């Protein structure tokens, strides 16, 4: 019985590995991509973009990583990739310091290393595929604000917390642009939401009462978008609109209601697509340090600043395109 059970197992194992044996042939490149979390829809859409690019370029793509956010697993997967031998490793980094050690080891073995979405320590990778700069986010948010208000009027911001580093950088850029470019727009108040939908709801309600002339609420934290939109919706004020930065799934119902005009983020599919193009160029030697621009297939020419490859202007989700996304 032992023998029968074992031969059955052998069969299963062999079937499981079928097709996996070929690996990187001498002419084709093998690129290994790792998300923070394989199950997160945000990364699932990154994967779709990466697969699209892999087909276009004829590159073998390995996509693996933790099934839930797990720093230890990321290390183990990179270790296995170093042993296996791949041309490029690209990672969205969960644990900066811990993973950087392993990434440095990979570079020491001649493997090119990229990070995307979340960076490692700068000396542990060749390039970081950066999805958005503070300037780019501020520009896009104000473009929408100006369009909605017709270039003139008062608006208020609902932020994450008053000390949130990312948000404060965006606000700084917004203030600069208000002074130089969008002089007709007036920012009257900034309220915290502490990344809490209910808090954003309460703050938006009191904003609408305190500033009757405010015609737009800009919610710049993911949970603040539905919170602010719900408050405006319940107020019944048809003359007030919401825009902001957040996840399309949170925004979907309010975009369809018309309360929420638009929500800005980056196109995660394009992020995966660009990462694979960058990996390919890096391995083939066409992308070197010091480059200032980079051709990435259907994304055309993108800017490179130092060791950051920029995905470019943030992506705007509206009621017309939001159904194509699920994260």
């Amino acid at each position, binding site marked *: 019985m032992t023998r029968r059970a074992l031969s059955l*197992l052998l069969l299963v194992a062999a079937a*499981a*590995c079928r097709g*996996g044996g070929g690996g990187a042939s001498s002419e084709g490149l093998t690129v290994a991509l790792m998300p923070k979390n394989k199950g997160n829809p945000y990364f699932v859409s990154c994967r779709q973009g990466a697969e699209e690019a892999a087909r276009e370029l004829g590159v073998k793509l390995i996509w693996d990583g933790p099934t839930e956010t797990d720093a230890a697993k990321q290390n183990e997967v990179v270790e296995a990739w170093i042993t*296996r031998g791949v041309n490029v490793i690209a990672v969205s980094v969960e644990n900066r*310091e811990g993973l950087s050690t392993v990434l440095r080891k990979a570079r020491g073995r001649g493997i090119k290393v990229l990070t995307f979405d979340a960076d490692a320590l700068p000396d542990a990778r060749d390039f970081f595929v950066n999805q958005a700069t503070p300037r780019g986010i501020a520009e896009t948010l104000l473009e929408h604000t100006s369009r909605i208000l017709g270039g003139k009027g008062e608006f208020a911001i609902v932020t994450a917390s008053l000390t949130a580093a990312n948000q404060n950088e965006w606000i700084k850029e917004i203030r600069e642009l208000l002074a130089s470019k969008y002089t007709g727009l007036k920012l009257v108040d900034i309220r915290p939401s502490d990344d809490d939908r209910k808090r954003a709801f309460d703050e938006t309600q009191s904003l609408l009462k305190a500033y009757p002339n405010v015609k737009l609420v800009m919610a710049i934290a993911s949970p603040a978008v539905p919170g602010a939109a719900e408050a405006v919706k319940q107020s019944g004020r048809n003359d007030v609109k919401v825009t902001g930065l957040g996840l399309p799934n949170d925004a979907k119902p309010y975009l369809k209601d018309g309360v929420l005009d638009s929500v800005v983020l980056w196109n995660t599919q394009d992020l995966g697509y660009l990462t694979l193009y960058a990996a390919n160029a890096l391995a083939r030697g066409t992308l070197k340090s010091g480059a200032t621009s980079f051709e990435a297939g259907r994304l055309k020419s993108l800017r490179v600043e130092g060791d950051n490859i920029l995905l470019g202007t943030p992506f705007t989700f509206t009621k017309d395109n939001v159904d194509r996304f699920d994260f």
Partner: protein
Amino acid sequence: MTDAAISRSTRALLLLLAVELVVFGLFGRNFLTLGNAFEVVRASVELGLLALALTAVIATGGIDLSVGSLVGLCAVVFGWLAREAGLAVPIAAALAVLAGTLGGLLNGWLVTSLRVPPLIVTLGSYSLYRGLAEAATGGVANYTGFPDGFLSLGQGTLWGGIPTQLPLLLLAFLFFWALVHRSVIGRGLQAIGYAPEAARHAGVPVGARLRLVYVLSGSVAGVASLVYVARLGQAKADAGTGFELMAITAVVLGGTSIFGGHASVPGTLVGLFVLALLQNGLRLADQPAELAGVLTGMLLLLALVLSRERKPS
């Protein structure tokens, strides 16, 4: 629990290991290399330490579900002491092992004094220890920036590429092998697992023995947490999540009866490497890691089928 049965289950397990080597040798890239062997060992040491200590616990018919959580708690204790409180690394490390020992002592005390079944006790401490680690750090504090000398415990190599932590695993193996298979204490442990009342009447100090195995399990979890922190370079409350179940799987796969009364320390080590090679081999064959879960489950069920004839009582 005859000698023939033991060797039969160990033989089957070694055969499994051989099957893995052949299959992944054919389909995995660079699988059969010394470098890969060392990486597999490096990644398995923490789990191996826990599994060895658990073998002694399970020999008594007990279980310790809290070891993974204890790894998290000790990691946080160590990280806080070394990075926030500014203690020297060796002192912080000793205190982290002490924290693990105390955690094990609490388990042992509850099991022996209150006569609560170990499954219930350690299910409680499983939540308690992880909860403490998370509460102390808010779940977000992540201690990093440990000195290189400490990190080399997890990332460094000895002569010719041997992972620094391998001697630790071998030491633990020898200790638990001698304890379980070559000492009076070990025979007592298996006697407790086989029939606690009979062991008591035969003069085995049941309470003291049980406290010993839980304390050892806690101390070992403390040591494992240090290796873990050194390997990843970070101490966070989520350290060691899920390790308890992986370690128990290795023990049961290795032929130790989950009902107690019969244990195999060498079997645990083979069971550990069967699991570790499965994960590693699948990755090198470009297969998704989820498949490892499916195959681990199949292996475990197969091991249970193979050991059916050995069910005690």
